[in-house]
């Protein structure tokens, strides 16, 4: 009860709602069962008892495929995110609005990728974001003539620093660097809002995510033999438990010794079992393992902090993991992946 007294009534209301909402999420054993369904139509049948049912019921049966299902999953994810935002106010609302901006960032990335390749893109390729929460004019970006015009449309948004970095992007021609800059802007903003909440658990959860994203990005860019300064420019500028010197050591480390350098960081436990994967450049496995650790961290957080605001944050993160899991199952079933292979791609 003492911990409850320190929490505002609005937060208590929010957390109570999220306790209810979290029961709608698939548990690991549910995901395991979904993996074993024989085909896509059985998978859709199984989803009709879940939060996805309203959107799924709108799809004519002959149009059901992994692509349409993925759109439904994104739609449901966006609904879940913005429902939380709509039930909050003040600094908590600002924080969750900023957290939900990751969907907007994903859309900006998708549009910029297509524009940089000179290819057309339509709004169906984007995560549906309600107009009132979007800070970017997506229809204008989609119909813009080229990459520069498209980036120019970000000038009046929080992503305006990208406009200044257009020259650097042109020089390097590497989308990964540009996307790194976008992530840096996103996490910078989110970190500011998290600091404003004065909630150590929230800071810790966001901080872990930022640091792990940075570590994965360093491993990823190191494997591509990109120059040190390019890697540094691509990183998220804010560090939580990583020090500037640790990041510098990692960026400057030789490929063969990067594992040892990683073990000297605060996040050694996330990488300690991944020596072979890191040394053999199997970075998708490394990424999967680290993200799976984050998934388990969310579950642990929900168990340990059932009354804190971090419970809501962990719930939203689990919503994202669920979206990834159901997308993987739908796509895997359509492509005929074996259950074992599919299972290895899931976060459970």
């Amino acid at each position: 009860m003492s911990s409850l007294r320190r929490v505002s009534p609005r937060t208590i209301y929010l957390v109570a709602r999220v306790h209810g909402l979290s029961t709608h999420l698939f548990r690991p054993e549910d995901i395991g069962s979904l993996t074993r369904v024989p085909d896509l139509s059985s998978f859709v049948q199984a989803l009709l008892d879940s939060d996805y049912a309203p959107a799924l019921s709108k799809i004519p049966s002959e149009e059901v495929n992994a692509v349409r299902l993925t759109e439904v999953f994104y739609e449901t994810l966006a609904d879940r995110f913005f429902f939380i935002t709509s039930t909050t106010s003040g600094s908590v609302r600002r924080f969750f609005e900023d957290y939900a901006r990751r969907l907007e960032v994903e859309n900006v990335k998708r549009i910029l990728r297509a524009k940089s390749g000179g290819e057309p893109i339509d709004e169906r390729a984007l995560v549906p974001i309600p107009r009132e929460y979007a800070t970017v004019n997506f229809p204008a970006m989609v119909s813009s003539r080229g990459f520069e015009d498209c980036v120019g449309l970000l000038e009046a948004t929080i992503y305006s620093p990208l406009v200044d970095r257009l020259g650097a992007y042109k020089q390097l021609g590497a989308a990964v660097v540009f996307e790194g800059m976008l992530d840096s802007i996103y996490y910078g903003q989110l970190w500011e809002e998290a600091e404003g909440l004065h909630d150590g658990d929230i800071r810790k959860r966001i901080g872990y995510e930022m640091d792990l994203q940075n570590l994965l990005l360093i491993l990823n860019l190191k494997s591509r033999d990109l120059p040190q300064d390019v890697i540094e420019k691509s990183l998220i500028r804010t560090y939580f438990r990583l020090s500037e010197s640790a990041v510098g050591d990692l960026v400057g480390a030789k490929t063969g010794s990067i594992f040892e350098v990683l073990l000297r960081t605060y996040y050694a436990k996330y990488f300690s079992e991944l020596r072979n994967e890191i040394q053999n450049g199997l970075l998708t496995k490394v990424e999967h393992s680290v993200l799976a650790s984050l998934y388990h961290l969310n579950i642990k957080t929900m168990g340990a902090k059932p009354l804190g605001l971090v419970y809501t944050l962990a719930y939203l993160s689990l919503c994202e993991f669920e979206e990834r899991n159901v997308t993987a199952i739908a796509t895997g079933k359509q492509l005929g992946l074996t259950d074992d292979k599919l299972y290895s791609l899931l976060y459970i």
Partner: protein
Amino acid sequence: MSVAGGVAATKGLLLRFREQLQFVEKGVGILKMKRERLAMEVNLLLDKVKARDQLEKEVMTAYGSLKEAYCALGYQGLRTIALGVEQAQVGGLSYSVVGVTVPTLQIEKTTSTAGIPSTWGYEVSQRFASLLPKIIQLSQSEAAIEKLVEELKSTNRKVSALEQIVIPSTVGIIQYIENRLYEETLEEFIRTKHVRETIRKRA
């Protein structure tokens, strides 16, 4: 002059058929040389085509990674990554092997994979980018084999036709003309002898 089997038995024709036989025999020799060269080229290319099994395995592995990337990123996620990748450019040229035009492909512009976002996208693109030169090499060899074998078959048919039909029939005609000319010479000789005897009796 006598006409038999559609061939007029004259000395001029005999000379022409003998010349023709010589020409055909020389042609057969050249065609056999061409056949050997073509067979040699095909044999050399066959060694390169042996890599197909291995390449098929690599392609299957790459498609396996592509499926996994689809699962991990979703259709639109992966598609938008692919949209940002500049496409490789392949140009077509040709070269000649004993008169046979063989197509050849050349990568004019490679795909730059270093800037591809997402670990999954990068891994898949790496696999396919490394396969592209091998696939081009193999398809080029297979196309060349197809063209060369077609020419080899045609050359074989020509050699057989010349050896089995044209040469024996020309030899036959030459023999026929020679026999006819011999018979005509003999007839002429007997006729002359008979005329001489008649003249001598009158005298």
